[in-house]
């Protein structure tokens, strides 16, 4: 095994711990499988980069980064941005769905109330 810098060890261990934490969240049904996928993929990549010095060095040279740790953090940052964009998409979609449900709820509540009163005065034609 090649020599690992302290930064590499910290990043790699951090990634492994995070991956375990994410999987545990799935086990406890706090996180859905769907959302865990991106996290598990990202932490795996970071852990591999952390542990494998040749691969890390190769990528660093290929991309022209100043140092190996920059590569690791660049990957981490790219993942964070991807995750944030993904979450914004999900939030927008939840917003649309929430909007539609709120409108339907208002209509249905009125329907229920008028049925309870036994009134048919404003039923759909």
């Amino acid at each position: 095994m090649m020599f690992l810098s302290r930064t590499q060890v910290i990043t790699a261990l951090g990634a492994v711990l995070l991956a375990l934490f994410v999987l545990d969240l799935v086990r406890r049904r706090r996180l859905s499988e769907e959302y865990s996928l991106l996290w598990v993929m990202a932490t795996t990549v970071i852990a591999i980069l952390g542990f494998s010095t040749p691969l890390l060095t190769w990528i660093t040279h290929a991309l022209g980064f100043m140092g190996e740790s920059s590569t690791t953090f660049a990957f981490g940052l790219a993942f964070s941005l991807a995750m944030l964009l993904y979450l914004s998409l999900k939030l927008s979609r939840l917003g649309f769905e929430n909007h539609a449900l709120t409108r339907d709820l208002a209509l249905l509540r009125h329907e229920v109330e008028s049925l309870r009163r036994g009134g048919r005065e404003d039923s759909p034609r």
Partner: protein
Amino acid sequence: MNAPRVLVVVPAHNEEDSLPAILTELREKAPGVDVLVVDDGSRDGTSRAAREAGVPVLRHPVNLGVGGALQTGFQWAVERGYDVAVQLDADGQHDPAYLSVVLAPVLAGRCDVSIGSRFVSSTGYRAPLNRRLGMLLFSGIVRLALGRPISDTTSGFRAYNRAVMRVCQYDFPKDFPDAPLLIALARRGFRLDEVPVVMRERQAGRSFYTLGKQLYYPYKNLLASLMALIRKPA
């Protein structure tokens, strides 16, 4: 053919103070039309005020914004077979006496959406400078998009026919339906028209415009207008 059925949709958010007056006025000045209040997540007695006036009220459990309230109104109108819906503010800015003026072009089939405008002829309305600039900008954009001027893009005193309601009940701007909506409707081939109305000062309640929204609104509206222009009508 039967007489066209008209529904006045009143979106209301915390308007318990002004609502009774406008509902009474509607009954006096426009006795033939049905009225629906959409209580957009109010925290005051807006729904109660509407019920006490004998008007059906749909209540959103949370606040969606004028666009959402109007959309609920359209869903109701389409389900119940109304031919035309008129949007009328709860705060008393829109005089029900002008209802027939706003309705006329749609009822006559001259257009699909009719907008009660403060600027078509001189009606003595003067907005603060920042709003005037914004209105100028967006009426410019709408003019470019439509190939014809709509001077009052922010007017909330409008009549929509059934074809427009059918589309809008599912596809509608979320917060405030102005320039982007007009562009989107024009892109779908709907005909828009403007008629002059006189608007009054709001009787009670607060405007939808807060400081944060004053900064966000131009950005959002500009982007939404652009998207409405380049988006393929579904």
